[in-house]
């Protein structure tokens, strides 16, 4: 860790500065049609217990059979994390009793995970990416869901999720602030979505994190950590780290000691609470699952997956900077969602032409992002096609409409004229900008004639020109070509 970065993130305590150390265990639901060890569907939102196979319900004599696609997804993710792919991995049983765990054990990879050490570049600011180490990635089964609010005397169980594949991605304790942890999860989520191995949908619980937090005096050995279980949004991850780090600092400064324990984050009260201490920790009695053979991958399988990987965010960002001349900042924002990046490229290259990339980027990050935000959808899903945006950019470039008119047109394209061809709309609404010099001349003359004093001032104060351009644009209903107006004004005013 660079010391300058560390010092910038220190927490001020009553007795001095503290460094916060964060490591994350992210649980990402694997995108697959069926579960990790059964053929039951993984679809979200179905009637309770409608996606439950005999294996998921742990009927006597049922056996798990590994889902090849889930394995492929884990390998793809490992490749995306530039990680060691383990040709041989094994599955273990983690034993504990709970009603939403029908087998009485979770099948996980404890000793030998499918993916070993890797790393991920996290763009905390576009100019200063940090590298977070990946400790391991392993496959495991999700549990079902206990429903405690359906009956006053009983709990109900929904096993739809039981057996769905999860990837647990364990980072090294390489993060030094809530901001870094949030950026890490954001980047990891982007990567998973690019690869297609998880939709990273935190609202559906498809991505959640166990957050390990400890504090120490800068330069000293690592402190005792607490694990905050099952935090389900990036914002909450940040909040949980901040309150937990402050709690630990206050505790130590008051002469106490942090005890290793599992805690819960309560967003409503903005605090973490003890769930169970180290002494109360379960003895999971891990042992190799005798129903499953070791998972052995051949090189050809891994190579084929590597060959089919899409362009990943870091590579795409570098290419956008190199090929389209985008700033690192713009490139980072555009590549955060694969669909947005594709939208950008489709627009720039629409119809085989090459458009002004910076202009397209500005539209996407500005007005279109705002529209998408207002709708609560991704940029690519906001209802505008790349063809429409390309047309809009072309209309400005051709001088047919001004930027101002284009913005108005965009509002229409998101409202009543959804799906319409911008070129047709320009004609329908008569938005074509006036380039006819005669019309501009008379509009300019009229404004000068109406403001003789200001015309006189303008001769000595060139700054007045802007005011005149505004007046002429206003009188032409914005349709005059601003450049032509400016040129004519300069001539008539003699500036």
């Amino acid at each position: 860790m660079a010391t300058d970065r560390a010092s910038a993130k220190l927490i001020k305590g009553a007795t001095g500065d503290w460094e916060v150390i964060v490591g994350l265990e992210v649980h990402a639901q694997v995108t697959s049609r069926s579960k990790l060890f059964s053929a039951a569907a993984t679809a979200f939102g179905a009637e309770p217990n409608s996606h439950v196979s005999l294996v998921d319900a742990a009927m006597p004599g049922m056996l798990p059979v590994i889902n090849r696609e889930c394995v492929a997804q884990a390998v793809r993710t490992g490749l995306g994390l530039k990680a060691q792919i383990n040709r041989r991995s094994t599955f273990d049983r983690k034993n504990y009793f709970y009603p939403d765990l029908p087998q009485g054990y979770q099948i996980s990879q404890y000793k030998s995970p499918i993916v070993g050490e890797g790393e991920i570049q996290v763009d905390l600011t576009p100019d200063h990416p940090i590298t977070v180490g990946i400790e391991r990635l392993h496959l495991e089964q999700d549990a079902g869901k206990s429903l405690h609010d359906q009956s006053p005397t009983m709990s109900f169980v929904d096993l739809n999720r039981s057996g769905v594949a999860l990837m647990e991605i364990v980072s090294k304790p390489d993060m030094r602030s809530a901001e870094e942890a949030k950026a890490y999860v954001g980047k990891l989520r982007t990567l998973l979505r690019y690869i297609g191995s998880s939709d990273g949908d935190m609202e559906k619980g498809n991505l959640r994190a166990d957050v390990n937090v400890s504090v120490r005096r800068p330069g000293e050995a690592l402190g005792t950590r607490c694990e905050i279980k099952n935090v389900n949004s990036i914002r909450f991850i940040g909040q949980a780290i901040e309150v937990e780090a402050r709690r630990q600092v206050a505790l130590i400064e008051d002469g106490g000691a942090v005890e290793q324990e599992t805690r819960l984050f309560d967003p409503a009260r903005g605090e973490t609470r003890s769930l169970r201490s180290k002494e109360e920790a379960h003895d999971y009695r891990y042992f190799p699952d005798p129903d499953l053979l070791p998972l052995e991958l051949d090189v050809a399988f891994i190579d084929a997956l590597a060959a089919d990987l899409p362009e990943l965010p870091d590579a795409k960002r570098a290419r956008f900077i190199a090929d389209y001349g985008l700033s690192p900042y713009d490139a980072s924002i555009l590549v955060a969602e694969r669909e947005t990046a594709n939208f950008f490229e489709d627009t720039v290259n629409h119809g085989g032409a090459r458009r002004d990339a910076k202009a397209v980027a500005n539209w996407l990050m500005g007005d279109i992002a705002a529209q998408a935000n207002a709708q609560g959808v991704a940029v690519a899903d906001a209802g505008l096609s790349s063809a429409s945006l390309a047309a809009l950019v072309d209309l400005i470039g051709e001088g047919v409409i001004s930027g101002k008119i284009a913005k108005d047109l965009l509002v229409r394209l998101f409202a009543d004229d959804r799906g319409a061809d911008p070129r047709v709309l320009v004609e329908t609404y008569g938005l074509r900008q006036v380039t006819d010099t005669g019309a501009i001349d008379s509009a300019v003359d009229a404004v000068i004639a109406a403001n003789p004093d200001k015309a006189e001032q303008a001769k000595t104060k060139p700054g007045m020109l802007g005011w005149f351009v505004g007046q002429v644009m206003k009188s032409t209903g914005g349709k005059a070509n601003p450049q032509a107006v400016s040129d004519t004004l300069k001539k008539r005013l003699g500036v």
Partner: protein
Amino acid sequence: MSDLTSLTLAEARDRLKSRTISSAEITRAHLEAIERAKGLNAFIAVTADKALQMAEASDARLAKKGAGPLEGLPIGIKDLYATEGVHTQACSHILDGFKPVYESTVTGNLWRDGAVMLGKLNMDEFAMGSSNETSYYGPVASPWLPPNWSRDRARAATSSDKRGLLTPGGSSGGSASAVAARLCLAATASDTGGSIRQPAAFTGIVGIKPTYGRCSRYGMVAFASSLDQAGPLARTVRDAAIMLGSMAGPDPKDSTCSPSPVPDYEAAIGRSIKGMKIGVPKEYRLEGMSTEIDALWSRGAEWLRAAGASVVDVSLPHTPYALPAYYIVAPAEASSNLARYDGVRYGLREPGADILDLYEKTRARGFGPEVRRRLMIGTYVLSAGYYDAYYVRAQKIRTLIKRDFERVFADGVDAVLTPATPTAAFGIGEKGSDNPVEMYLNDIFTVTVNMAGLPGLVAPAGLSSEGLPLGLQLIGRPFDEETLFALGETIEQSAGRVTLPDPWWA
């Protein structure tokens, strides 16, 4: 007992094929025999209607073309196998009322080949036991009369607590008793540490535990997944070969099941054993073993030599560690496999104040003492701080045992010959009540085979001085069941067919 129930499976098959008898007739004859043998307590659920329906369907197929290899042959199924819509409880109270909506692969294969199901057979609870005394449904009596017992005394004992009657062994006690008593032509069984082979030896019949992975475990109630294997009990080696041929085979629903095709096991019967090399391991010569067993073993080696095989002394040095290691590995796996019986989704549920109370009450009442003991042993050996000392070390021993055999086979040995059990059958209530290890010692010659994943066949080889059957065990190379069938039949022919007891129970 009618002539029809005395037929071997192969004989019955041939008569059905030539249509000198019908499946309905032979099925009815067995149902009647079962009815008369209630005192043995071998069957815990009789599916008479289903059996007769299956028999009729078989007769229809026998009349046309397209009859399967087991068409119309009535057999019994160990309660360990999931049979759709039929009692499947592994003879445990905790699975009360459980009738699966699915069929095990092994039984599915048997029905595919035309076999007729007579019902479900008694067994030790979750296959944990060596005398069929841990069954929730009570002990099974062997059809063999205890030495010096009169038929009347024995018959009287069947209707009381059965104490003093002989056990058929376990855990496949119901299967062994039913086959020996001619209540079915053959039966499915399962073997985790000797549960096919020891009952075969005790009841004078043939049993084979095939190579681990030869039969699918899908739909078999799991005891110890890395050791459990399905196999048949039958009255002749040929019958066992025919049964295994149908039971075995690849199954994508079991990751540990071998994809290799099943050879024609019956074709191995009668194959010459000339030139084969038979290993006799010195470590199986236990201190204090009866001279009777020793003599039987030597006689077995003589028979094989007489048939053209050579017999050599071999060493399997890690044999003494097999039993203790087995009693770590098997309970460890069982403690996890049986966690699913929690009263939440099926079977017995004892209401509790909260979920923990429900678990505790259900499992305390649902599992018998032997199962509870093993679950506690298994939980203990997997616990933090004990795992390395027990489980890891037991797995190392397991590897060494496997290597012992590999070395012997690499030296050109085709099969290893050992006694099947240290003694002949003992009485119900006689063993293990004070010291469970006394019961565990029954498996001393058989557990090594499960630990090494090898095939093991037991064939009757003679009678004890008290007139009780004794068996010899043949251990083969992985997936070389054919050699065992060829050798087993040689022993069977040399020893002369065991005369099974007349039905005193009827």
